[in-house]
């Protein structure tokens, strides 16, 4: 493993953990992949390519257990807030690493919400409920954190892939789903859990997922259609 990137990642997790805010967050996005790789014994089907964006989903923006100033906490470890004037979204940047906060859709059409109890803003995206409902706790680099269960991550990625407008991201998401689909096909526990989560999806989500896996993942297609 390359130390620098994981040092920065560990620093972020440690700071958020020490501040007490990690309880309110779920790590999502491509930085879950190294964690899954560790959980599943370095299985080679799990891609290691990831962006320098580290995405955290705020579990319940309206109901924060303990107010924490995440903005200040991140600045204390060298992250600079970068402010998008059009969207009001604030991200945090250091050496090209970008930390972004996300939220599931709530009532209203806001694309960005303010979360004053955490002193951050979060981008509102669809289908984030999947990561919230199927979050699990794990330990990585000595820190307890929440990530989506691998089957939930995979199915979510399959849905999101269909929505991508950027071809490169679309292709990357498809490659992630293909790899994770193959891993799921190797492990009976993951197969049954994937099917269980899929069956709990609304019909419209199932339809989108099936359309995607029919094209990209014979393993998931076979599993979900049976």
């Amino acid at each position, binding site marked *: *493993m*390359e130390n*620098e990137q994981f040092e920065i990642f560990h620093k972020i997790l440690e700071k958020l953990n020490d501040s007490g805010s990690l309880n309110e967050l779920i790590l999502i996005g491509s930085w879950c992949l190294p964690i899954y790789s560790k959980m599943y014994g370095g299985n*080679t089907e799990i891609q*290691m390519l990831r962006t320098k964006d580290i995405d955290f989903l705020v579990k319940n923006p309206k109901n924060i257990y303990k107010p924490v100033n995440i903005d200040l906490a991140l600045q204390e470890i060298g992250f600079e807030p970068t402010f998008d004037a059009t969207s009001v979204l604030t991200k945090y940047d250091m050496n*090209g690493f970008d930390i972004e906060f996300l939220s599931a859709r709530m009532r209203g059409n806001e694309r960005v919400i303010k979360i004053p109890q955490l002193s951050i803003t979060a981008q509102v995206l669809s289908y984030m409920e999947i990561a919230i409902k199927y979050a699990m706790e794990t330990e990585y680099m000595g820190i307890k954190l929440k990530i989506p269960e691998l089957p939930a991550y995979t199915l979510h990625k399959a849905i999101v892939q269909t929505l991508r407008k950027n071809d490169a991201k679309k292709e990357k998401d498809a490659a992630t789903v293909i790899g994770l689909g193959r891993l799921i096909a190797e492990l009976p526990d993951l197969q049954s859990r994937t099917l269980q989560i899929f069956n709990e999806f609304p019909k419209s989500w199932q339809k989108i997922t099936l359309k995607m896996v029919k094209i990209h993942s014979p393993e998931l297609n076979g599993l979900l259609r049976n």
Partner: protein
Amino acid sequence: MSVVGGILREERDRLEAQLLKYENKLLSLPNATVKKRDKYLYYVRRQGKKVLTEYIGELSSEKAKKAMEWDSERKKYKQRKKTTLSELKEVRRLLGKRAI
């Protein structure tokens, strides 16, 4: 050392391990394709310039079904190996460009 270089090296290592996994899988399967002829199944393999045919059994036999399963596996892993090689080539090229 750059972070992006680090991520690319991890991916290169993963792809190399994956390539080895697929090659080992292919080695564990019969090195031949199957061919149906009438109601029977045969292995067909090359030995230098020669094409050798080996009788497996009737299509309905367990032996033939197993051979067709292996053939399907072999095609699958051949394709995966091909994709992995292509991805590995790309990652190595990117790493080469970064002179790391």
